[in-house]
């Protein structure tokens, strides 16, 4: 004899459609989450690469460059400073000028690379000015701030999309629960009149939609992972290109986003089902 047959019968057609919708929403939410994570990671990568680095361009005679290195090295907050050789300067220009290099007769700007604490750029500029050396100091702060603002905006938009998709998911589940309740009002009424408590009846729907949410969420997260992996493969950069954009990769945080998606989808489904069923039951005596 069969045991403990489910009190709610399966509604194949309706649940297949709902499964698809929840799966699609989870895919979009997880993918948006990955985009947000990538945006913040890119901002970190870009800014951390240049954090503490100061580039000084000396415009005066050659002798000023050596004198500037000595002054900069002694400036408070500076850990090291050295004048770039012609080869090092050419290496920097390679992405623009190609592997052919810089023509031998072409004068290159005289550059000094220094490393130091944040804010040391101002001290360097003041020291060089005091020594009467015509130089431009760039501590990349303006560029870093711009990069952070752009990636922060992308991240915020992506997180808003996650929130919107989450709310849409809850609304869809609530609608589906309501439809299921209407379709099986006979069961709900019979249980209610037999003395079942609201929590018991709500629990039937909660379990049904929890499973649906988790399964659809898992599939959606898997699809998001597949899509992200495909994109990473498609836009992978050579080492020569990697200086411009941070190298994208899937990290532990991405795994967390993907792993949590089914759980969040399940919990949201449960929440929506509970709310809808209890609200409907409150209309009964």
């Amino acid at each position, binding site marked *: 004899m*069969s045991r403990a*047959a489910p009190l709610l019968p399966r509604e194949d057609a309706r649940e297949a459609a709902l499964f698809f919708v929840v799966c699609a929403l989870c895919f979009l939410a997880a993918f948006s989450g990955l985009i947000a994570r990538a945006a913040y990671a890119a901002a970190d990568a870009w800014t951390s690469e240049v954090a503490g680095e100061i580039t000084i361009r000396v415009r005066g005679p050659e002798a000023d460059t050596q004198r500037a290195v000595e002054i900069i090295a002694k400036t408070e907050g500076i850990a090291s400073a050295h004048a770039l050789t012609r080869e090092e300067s050419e290496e920097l220009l390679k992405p623009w000028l190609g592997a052919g290099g810089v023509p031998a007769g072409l004068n290159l700007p005289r550059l000094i690379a220094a490393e130091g604490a944040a804010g040391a750029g101002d001290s360097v500029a003041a020291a060089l000015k005091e020594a009467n050396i015509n130089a431009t100091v760039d501590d990349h702060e303006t560029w870093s701030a711009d990069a952070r603002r752009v990636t922060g905006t992308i991240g915020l938009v992506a997180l808003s999309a996650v929130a919107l998709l989450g709310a849409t998911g809850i609304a869809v589940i609530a609608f589906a629960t309501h439809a299921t309740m209407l379709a099986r009002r006979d069961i709900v009424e019979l249980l209610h009149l037999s*003395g079942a408590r609201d929590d018991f009846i709500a629990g039937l729907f909660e379990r049904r939609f929890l499973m649906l949410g988790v399964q659809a969420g898992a599939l959606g997260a898997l699809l998001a992972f597949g899509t992200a992996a495909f994109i990473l493969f498609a836009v992978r950069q050579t080492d020569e290109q990697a200086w411009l954009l941070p190298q994208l990769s899937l990290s532990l945080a991405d795994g967390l986003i993907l792993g949590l998606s089914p759980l969040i989808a399940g919990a949201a489904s449960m929440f929506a089902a509970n709310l809808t069923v209890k609200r409907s039951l409150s209309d009964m005596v």
Partner: protein
Amino acid sequence: MPDNDLSTDEPVLRLDRVGLSYGPKSDVLADVSLSLRPGSMTFLTGPSGSGKSTLLRLAYLALRPTAGRVSLFGVETNRLRRRDLAPLRRRVGVVFQEFRLLDHLSAYDNVALPLRITGRPEASYRQDVIDLLGWVGLGDRLEARPATLSGGEKQRVAIARAVVGKPDLLIADEPTGNVDEEMGERLYRLFRELNRRLKTTVLIATHDMALVRRAKNDVLRLAEGMVVRVPLDQREGQP
């Protein structure tokens, strides 16, 4: 099955000047008062549309009255919160007019449903359910789905479901309405046996005046929104 122990003479069901209306000029019940003694068996008769089913719905707490008081087992239900009604409902077994069996469940699972919602483990009631289905003559149809059962068999599954929790009050709405005379008589004997063996208080709404006359139980007649007790010698004629 063990006998029910109703140790008090408090009416099992008491309606005191109960009215129910869906608007200013649509009284379904105007002024209904009745009282059922513990262990009694009572027929509720009345013409179609007189409000018998509505009165029963008030009794099994599917509706609240718009006037008057409904008391179950000595508890005035009007003042109870929704969540406090569930324990009272568990003490009432209902045989619905249209059976209300769940199509996707077997006869066994349909009968076990009131016990299942209490959270009891299945092992604790499995044999009781099987015995009960045997008692109503369906011991060989445990796995049958409602769609494969005859009208009489469905009715007996519905009765088994109503009594499986050993209710203090059994309410049946036109239980013989969808079956032939012979089956009607068998069902009546089933109710009478429940009433006598378990001391379950039984309230049956019916059109079947022949059955009412044969039965010689208490009879209440509902007409024009009011209930009157019908003496034994005045049970001829129309419901």
